[in-house]
């Protein structure tokens, strides 16, 4: 081991000792109740090191000075999907997600990346995601390249080096990017269609408001139909989830503060998110900023208001929905289910659509393998999980796979692609399907 390596390890151990929440580590009583819900434990055929109980033991061993933070250790934490399915299963209430985030943050800060990876990380994490206008610029770029048929962007940033094969499937499934002009004129306020039932603010999200802009439009359309008055604060930003989960916590904190400020003024009761991945971080802003006295309470006030779009739609009620007869299945977004604890509302909404036969798939609550940047970094495991998932989808004979998060949506689309089922199966975001069903329902009514 080089001197530099051993220095780095010593530093990591020190950081683990000073930063990891030891009470939380001890809170794990090693009962093993979380094991059956952990995708990596299952996919590895029961490897304890790839289980939540094992990972917690490893982190604790590093703090206790019983183990060096070696490559195996870093790989094991990297293999974790961060899906947090272990949390609802844990009767002891261990906050595994927080432990993982802290550990990754320490490792990340001490990481030596190869130059291209470093460049890509800095480019995306510092330059693109935090700046909504750059997100738009980048999208304009992508839009331009897409239109001119050259996918140079990935190559230019060396993205292909880390992304490999998977990236090309991913490129295939990316939605058509909206034109820059459209992206510039985003609405700020939407009136309810009838008498106002709820007043809400909409968290538009960086990816959602650009690449998935149509889904955001559908969201606003549905809120209107559900008689919600919507404000869309213009100074809001990327939620910071990708940063927080990739060990870029400081940037995540900065973003959180900007968002808290953006949503502090205004007359509304809820902050609505339509991406499980974003929502889950938004409800934990208070945790993210727990060490900053000035922000803690403001963060809590923000987090308390966060709610998923499906909850509010189910609560406020939508007009009669209808679709052509089809079998529909739902894939939980891990963070929506395990952190925001929203699981019933999306299912109930889907079941209420006329013409839809809802089939619950086996293990719908298990991660699809997308997990933020996971499907790029841990390709092999990600694809193994996806194939497993698609086998369960097929058993339902569903024509439509519904998801509630952009990452999951792309992953499921990639799944459809991998299975060569593009002609008989589609993957959609739940709000897109609901909007389609509301419109269809209106048409049927007019006909009648």
């Amino acid at each position, binding site marked *: 081991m080089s001197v530099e390596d051993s220095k780095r390890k010593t530093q990591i151990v020190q950081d683990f000792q000073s930063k990891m929440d030891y009470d939380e580590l001890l809170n794990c*009583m090693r*009962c*093993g109740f979380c094991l*059956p819900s952990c995708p990596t434990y299952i996919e590895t055929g029961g490897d304890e090191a790839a289980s939540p109980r094992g990972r917690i033991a490893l982190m604790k061993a590093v703090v206790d000075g019983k*183990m060096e933070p070696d490559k195996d250790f870093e790989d094991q934490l990297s293999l974790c999907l961060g899906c947090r399915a272990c949390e609802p299963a844990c*009767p002891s209430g261990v906050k595994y997600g927080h432990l993982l985030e802290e550990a990754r943050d320490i490792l990340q800060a001490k990481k030596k990346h190869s130059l291209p990876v470093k460049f890509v990380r800095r480019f995306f994490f510092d330059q693109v995601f935090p700046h909504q206008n750059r997100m738009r610029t980048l999208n304009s770029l992508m839009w331009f390249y897409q239109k001119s048929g050259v996918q140079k962007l990935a190559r230019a940033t060396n993205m292909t080096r880390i992304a490999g094969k998977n990236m090309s499937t991913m490129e295939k499934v990316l939605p058509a990017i909206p034109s820059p002009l459209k992206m510039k004129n985003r609405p700020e306020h939407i009136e309810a269609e009838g008498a106002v039932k709820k007043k809400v603010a909409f968290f538009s999200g960086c990816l959602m408001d650009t690449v998935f802009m149509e889904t955001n439009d559908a969201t606003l359309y549905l809120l209107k139909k559900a008689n919600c008055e919507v404000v869309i604060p213009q100074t809001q930003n990327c939620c910071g989830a990708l940063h927080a989960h990739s060990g870029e916590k400081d940037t995540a904190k900065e973003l959180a503060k900007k968002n808290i400020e953006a949503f502090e003024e205004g007359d509304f009761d809820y902050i609505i998110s339509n991406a499980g991945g974003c929502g889950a971080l938004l409800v934990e802003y208070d945790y993210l900023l727990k060490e900053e006295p000035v922000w803690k309470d403001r963060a809590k006030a923000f987090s308390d208001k966060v709610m998923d779009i499906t909850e509010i739609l189910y609560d406020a009620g939508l007009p009669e929905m209808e679709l052509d007869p089809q079998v529909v299945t739902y894939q939980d977004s891990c963070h929506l289910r395990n952190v925001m604890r929203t699981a019933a509302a999306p299912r109930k909404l889907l079941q209420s659509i006329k013409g839809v036969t809802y089939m619950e798939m086996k293990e719908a609550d298990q991660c699809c393998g997308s997990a933020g940047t996971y499907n790029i970094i841990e390709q092999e495991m990600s694809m193994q999980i996806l194939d497993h998932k698609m086998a369960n989808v097929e058993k339902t004979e569903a024509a439509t796979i519904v998801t509630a998060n952009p990452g999951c949506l792309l992953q499921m689309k990639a799944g459809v692609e991998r299975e060569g089922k593009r002609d008989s199966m589609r993957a959609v975001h739940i709000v897109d399907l609901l909007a389609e069903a509301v419109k269809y329902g209106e048409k049927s009514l007019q006909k009648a």
Partner: protein
Amino acid sequence: MLNKEVRGKLEKIVGRENLLDSQQDLIVYSYDATPDYQALPDAVIKPRHKEDVAEIVKVCNEYKVPVVPRGSATNLCAGTTPLEGGLVMLFNYMKDIIEIDEENLTVTVQPGVITLDMIKAVEEKGLFYPPDPSSMKISTIGGNINECSGGLRGLKYGVTRDYVIGIEFVMPDGSIVKTGGKLAKDVAGYDLTRLMVGSEGTLGIITEATLKLIPVPETKKTMLALYDSLEAAGNTVSKIISNRIIPATLEFLDQPTIQVVEDFANIGLPTEAGAILLIEQDGPEEVVERDIQRMAEICEETNALSVQIAQSPEEGEALTSARRSALSALARLKPTTILEDATVPRSKIAEMVKAIEEIADKYNVKICTFGHAGDGNLHPTCMTDARNRDEMQRVEQAFEDIFAKAIDMGGTITGEHGVGVMKSPYLSWKVGEAGVEAMRAIKQAFDPNNIMNPGKVFAKDARKRVVVQR
């Protein structure tokens, strides 16, 4: 570390990929669910079939390398903590359900099968395997057999022992023994099946087991009774049994436990009650209906504050699953949770719980008690912090008093979790010196080199409780 020669031989048997000894592997196989115990093995091995097991054990016997068979490591007696190093043996490749025999009503499985997976598989065929430890979602049949695990249905249906009718195991010298079979009767020689059940991996390695099944009961009903004190609940238990009713489940929670379970499960348990009884009856509808009605009356006669009969199977299931989570939910209160399973004749339950309360006061420690009221199996659970060595000392003394008290009442030091390391110092309290010697003689005859899960069951240092030791 294993010496090179042993390592080479083992690798030859299972292949390099199935012999693990990286730093990470040693750490994650160094513990089980028992608080405050941890010790690194020298390596971890994954046999693919019984022939591998036999070959591995032969090598270990020759070189005197300890072997610690491990299921899911949910035991609560430090049973799979490799205190003397050696090999931890996993059954990841041996988790098949070999056969469900619908004519003889048996199921034959490999040891690594998850209890609940097997229960679900037999239930699909309309058959029933009653032993249901709270940990069944992740525990293995191999572990269940070796601890002789019990569950919520123990009162009426018995425990694991009552369902194991045939075993195949590898002796410490590598020979393979088959006992019992799909037989209702079998008196050919000593009852080795019974001997292996509850042997905690100290006599041999189970590679296959045949379990008895029964038809699934037609219906089930659940009810909940509230009391202002545990004694009142204890009276109900005695009266139900003396009225010749044997409910499928008869569980109790004391007040602090109720509070914590409710915080966790949110099912509307009355947190102000002094005690709760969870009662379940299964069987033909008319019997269930009659028994539930009669038991509800008995509850009222014995001063229950209220009696609530679950209106749907889902409601009943919510109540039972809340009880299942009791132990883990208690773990939320403090970093370290130490759970014991002292057991007394069921008529002594209320008296024992009272004694536990007094002992907790005496040593100034926090103990919640819940458990299987029907079979006298209590789970006094202490919430503490392993870092507080002074308090840990008092916890140890408190449990020592609890064991002594249980034995005075004609009870035992452990009802279902096994002796392992945790309770080995007290074994002679229950079975006497002569009893321990008889057991030692059996161990010596099976395993003269003491390679099978050494350091378990028999204490090096009898009587001194070892909970504080690392």
